[in-house]
């Protein structure tokens, strides 16, 4: 049984946050984890998770920026702001003066503008018990807030680092863009080599005509179990461009809900993932069209090697009032070893006629013709396979909303490829 959230906090939080956590804890009571009988948890490894195995972090005991994070920050010098979160607690926050004067806020949500209102504005009660646990246990939520009309022309970095052995960690990131604002956020999920259960909740709130780029790079260590909810809301003529790289964790699941609530809103959702060893990488996506003339475009591309597994299930939901919707969903999987396994289940649920929708999914080995073509020029087999796989991902990596991070993701993929393809 997890420790009650208020007892876990060593430093005082504002009364409203304490009250909120208590209310959520009372609501969920003794939490029951979902079963794989539920469609959205089918093929997941939720049955292997026991909350009693993990201990919530004592926020008072967390301090300092880990060495590995310094190295990462040195690799990404062009930035408007940086927030470092360690085991769910903000340990460093800094906004470049030029952007601070524009009104950019990046730091502890409890210190930010309209923090109380922003927290949960998109997530609500959350889609599942892990999101609810996040609500009940969140130690120190992060807010990135851009005022209406402001363009932030350098990325905002959020580094979410986990290095507490045996910990249950509940990070929360809220990104809010005012009307006609523009910003790119890089959310880096890394860890030391520790066993941990991490259940992040990410809320992306895009106001009218605002443009948000959000890149999530998940490179946790191989003993981390992670269950993420990424929840977004896009208002009239707003644009969300989200890209995820799912590379780390023993089990790493991300549920992505993109809700297009204003006329003309656009959501572009992309992901790359690469599984090795015994990893399971699990993605559930919901493209929800709740207003006319909205567009969603999803492209998830993954590779599974060794005895790793990947799961993709996606739903395009077009509500009755969402006339003129364009919704596309593509999931492509490369199976690099005979013991690897990829599941792909696309779905549509459409309540109006005036729509343009498509979905496509594939699971297959490396394209034999592409490999043969490269080999016919004298490229050794394993190099040819590496080139083909890297090329397979290039389509997504070239469109990453935070350009500077592409080489880091490419490097992480290369390192996995470099281990050799069977």
């Amino acid at each position: 049984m997890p420790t009650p959230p208020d007892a876990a906090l060593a430093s005082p939080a504002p009364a409203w946050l304490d009250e909120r956590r208590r209310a959520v804890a009372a609501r969920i009571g003794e939490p029951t984890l979902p079963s794989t009988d539920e469609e959205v948890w089918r093929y997941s490894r939720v049955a292997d998770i026991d909350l009693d195995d993990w201990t919530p972090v004592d926020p008072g005991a967390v301090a300092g920026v880990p060495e590995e994070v310094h190295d990462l920050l040195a690799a990404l010098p062009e930035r408007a702001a940086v927030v470092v979160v360690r085991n769910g607690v903000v340990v460093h926050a800094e906004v470049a003066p030029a952007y601070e004067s524009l009104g950019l806020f990046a730091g502890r949500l409890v210190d930010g503008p309209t923090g109380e209102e922003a927290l949960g504005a998109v997530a609500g009660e959350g889609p599942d018990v892990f999101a609810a646990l996040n609500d009940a246990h969140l130690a120190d939520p992060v807010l990135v807030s851009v005022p209406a009309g402001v363009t932030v022309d350098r990325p905002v970095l959020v580094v979410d680092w986990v290095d507490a052995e045996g910990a249950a960690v509940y990070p929360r990131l809220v990104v809010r863009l005012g009307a006609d604002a523009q910003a790119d956020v890089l959310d880096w999920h890394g860890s030391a080599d520790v066993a941990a259960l991490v259940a992040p909740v990410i809320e992306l709130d895009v106001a009218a005509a605002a443009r948000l780029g959000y890149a999530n790079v998940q490179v946790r260590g191989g003993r981390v179990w992670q269950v993420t909810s990424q929840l977004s809301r896009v208002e009239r003529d707003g644009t969300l461009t989200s890209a995820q790289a799912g590379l780390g964790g023993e089990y790493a699941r991300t549920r992505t809900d993109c809700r297009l609530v204003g006329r003309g809103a656009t959501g572009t959702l992309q992901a790359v993932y690469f599984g090795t060893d015994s990893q399971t990488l699990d993605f559930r996506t919901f493209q929800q069209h709740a207003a006319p003339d909205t567009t969603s475009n999803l492209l998830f591309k993954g590779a599974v090697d060794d005895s790793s597994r990947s799961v993709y299930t996606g739903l395009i939901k077009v509500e009755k009032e969402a006339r003129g919707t364009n919704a596309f969903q593509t999931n492509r999987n490369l199976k690099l070893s005979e013991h690897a396994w990829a599941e792909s289940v696309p779905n549509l649920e459409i309540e109006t006629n005036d729509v343009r929708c498509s979905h496509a999914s594939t699971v297959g080995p490396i394209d034999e013709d592409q490999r043969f073509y490269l080999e016919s020029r004298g490229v050794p087999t394993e190099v040819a396979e590496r080139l083909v796989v890297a090329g397979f991902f290039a389509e997504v990596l070239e469109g990453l909303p935070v350009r500077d991070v592409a080489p880091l993701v490419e490097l992480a993929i290369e390192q996995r490829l470099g281990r050799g393809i069977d």
Partner: protein
Amino acid sequence: MTGTRAGELRIEGLRAEVAGREILHGIDLHVRSGEVHAVMGPNGSGKSTLSHVLMGKPGYTVTGGSVTLDGVELLSLPTWQRAQAGLFLAMQYPVEVPGVSVDDLLTEALAAAGRDVTVVHTEVAAEAERIGLATRLLDRPVNVDLSGGEKKRNETLQLAVLKPRFAVLDELDSGLDVDALRACARRVEAATTESDLGVLAITHYHRLLDELRPDVVHILVKGRIVATGGPELAAELERTGYAAWTDEEAEAQPEAPKARAIDPSMHPGAGGPGGMFGDPFADPLA
């Protein structure tokens, strides 16, 4: 059988099958460095099978014979080592490889050979200029969104940078206009004198041979070489067609399966001489 010698691509008694059906019934061809040999044949004669088997494309089973390049047996080598041994295949339908540029490709190929890769970018640019391939196309992934002519120029560019000992040109003349054909043919011909390249040009049509003048012409029908001669043989074929050869062969041999039906690279609509119907000598662009 004569012994192998340096400066020679030597195909002896090559037999190959696809899905249990023999397509090549014993091919003998000896191409010396600097020579241009044309292999001409109608649809279904095994032309593409021959080029694919030489390069080791998956899906074909060699059931007999040998192929040596400068004395090195190729048939026991994986595709990339055949290329490293000096063989190049200019493909009829060059494959699009998303995310891989021609620079990346040639850098890896030359690195595997232990050759200098610092010159790749410059050499690619110089060859593009020489072959008439717009340099802006070099930033694209290999063959992606290129026209038929651009793809063949790109194949020729790679040949020029890699400098193989022997090149198999599989229907180099399909799917490209006369300007591109001339540019590619002239570059290949130059390589025969500049670097002593030996060429095996596989084609259905005569027009390639107007640009790339062969020393020897072979006629391939139903998996066998049925005639070998000088350039005059191609000229004779131009006048009389394949009928004389195919009729005679049809009586002697059971019908061979059509290569088109079993070759996965020859997907419909890929461009190239299309048809099993009509005049086999018709210029596809006429």
